[in-house]
């Protein structure tokens, strides 16, 4: 599997899109740091960007990479390599290369700015960790969608819809349900609902850490009230791990039964 991972990773790292993605983060975080100077505020701004952009880019890259490497995959399938290792290797190669763009794009400016001497270091680490989680989650989901759909257009459509649903529509429905059912006790339901969406969950994870959950809407407030900061953090992390493991498990299952 490591060999496949290596080839996928270097293949992707050579593509210009990885550089565009890396440069984007580099420019955004440098200019935010330069303009604002307040690390805490910069982290919140970056959080809002990352929560939308990381899932979108991971989704698009995931389907694109799967469809573009079909030939490569077919060539590999005829070699003495375990099927599972081919797909896991490709997936991990993809997620790792996207994550490194994120890590270096954000890391370099913060490092130069002196994040290690700042009290905000843990908040920054949480930002990176959730970004990496979202990359792994959404590239796994999109890889799975591509694996199940031979039709590229359909694959792209489903992935874009899933992203739009989780990043935008979900919050709308969530708020709507809170307004419609405001006569009822809603704590448990809203908790469960926000756990089901990895983007919301990542937001909670960062906000709980930043200790400003009260400022950032109902979701965070409920979480803070219920779990206190440490338990909430642990639970959110566990659920993010679940969100990563489940699609990867599905990739293994689906790829094992597929005909090429």
């Amino acid at each position, binding site marked *: 599997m490591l*060999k*496949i991972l290596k*080839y996928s990773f270097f*293949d992707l790292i*050579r593509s210009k899109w990885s550089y565009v993605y890396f440069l984007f983060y580099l420019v955004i975080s440098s200019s935010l740091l330069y303009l604002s100077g307040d690390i805490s505020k910069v982290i919140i701004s970056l959080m809002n960007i990352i929560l939308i952009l990381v899932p979108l880019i991971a989704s698009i890259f995931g389907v694109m990479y799967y469809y573009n*490497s*079909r*030939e*490569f995959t*077919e*060539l*590999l*399938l*005829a*070699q*003495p*390599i*375990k*099927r599972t290792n081919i797909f896991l290797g490709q997936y991990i190669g993809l997620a790792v290369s996207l994550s490194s763009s994120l890590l270096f794009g954000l890391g370099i400016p913060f490092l130069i700015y002196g994040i290690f001497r700042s009290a905000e270091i843990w908040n920054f680490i949480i930002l990176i960790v959730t970004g990496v989680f979202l990359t792994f989650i959404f590239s796994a989901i999109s890889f799975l969608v591509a694996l199940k759909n031979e039709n590229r257009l359909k694959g792209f459509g489903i992935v874009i819809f899933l992203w739009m649903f989780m990043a935008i529509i979900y919050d709308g429905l969530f708020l709507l349900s809170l307004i419609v059912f405001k006569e009822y006790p809603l704590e448990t339901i809203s908790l469960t609902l926000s756990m089901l969406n990895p983007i919301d969950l990542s937001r909670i994870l960062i906000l709980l850490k930043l200790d400003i959950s009260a400022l950032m809407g109902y979701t965070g407030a409920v979480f803070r009230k219920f779990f206190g900061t440490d338990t909430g953090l642990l639970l959110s992390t566990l659920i993010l791990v679940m969100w990563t493991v489940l699609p990867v498990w599905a990739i293994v299952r689906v790829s094992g*039964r*597929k*005909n*090429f």
Partner: protein
Amino acid sequence: MSHIIQIANLYKSFGKTKVLQGIDLNFEESKISVVLGPNGSGKTTLIKSILGMVIPESGSIKVMGTEIQNQWAYRENISYLPQIANFPANLTVQELVNMITDLRGKAARDESELINDFGLGPFMKIRLTNLSGGTKQKVNILLAFMYDSPILMLDEPTNGLDPVALIRLKALINRKKAEGRSFLITTHIMQLVEELADEIVFILEGLVYFKGTVTSLKKTFDEPDIEKAIAKILLKNNVV
């Protein structure tokens, strides 16, 4: 005579299309077996099932004595030449060769000899997207013959080859056979069948319709050449 590949009661369908409907077949060691059949008769599906790329609904396949279901290590003994040469577009020929060698974890044997024979030298540093169909097929041949596997499965190996390359390919196949390699070839070129085949397997509608030598095929259907014999089978079964 030992059987290098044993297939028993193999079934596969894609949706409503039943492609293989109970194939029972053995391929013998150190022989050239040619699988024939009209388009869509299941030749490629059969080959891909042996490779584990297509997963059959039921039945068993044994390669060199081991059941292949959910296995992968047995593919070390097989080289495959796919019908359509699909390669990662951005690699050069040399990079592709290096990569496959690395993945197989086994040094290539006749690499430089093959590159010479098929005139691939000037193309080694060129990206695969920029190669013509015939040159791609030569790369395909290079990859299939490079590792000297006991079993070679060639799906339409003559596609797009010029006469010189064709003659060299035939010579190569005969030489490897003499060295004890076993071949499983599909083709539509009857001349090739006549020249190479030790054994013909004719597949029709997912079943083995005929298995035997070229001579026995001609005798059974009372025709002077294979082409006519095959045509007779097809017309008799209302396939065309």
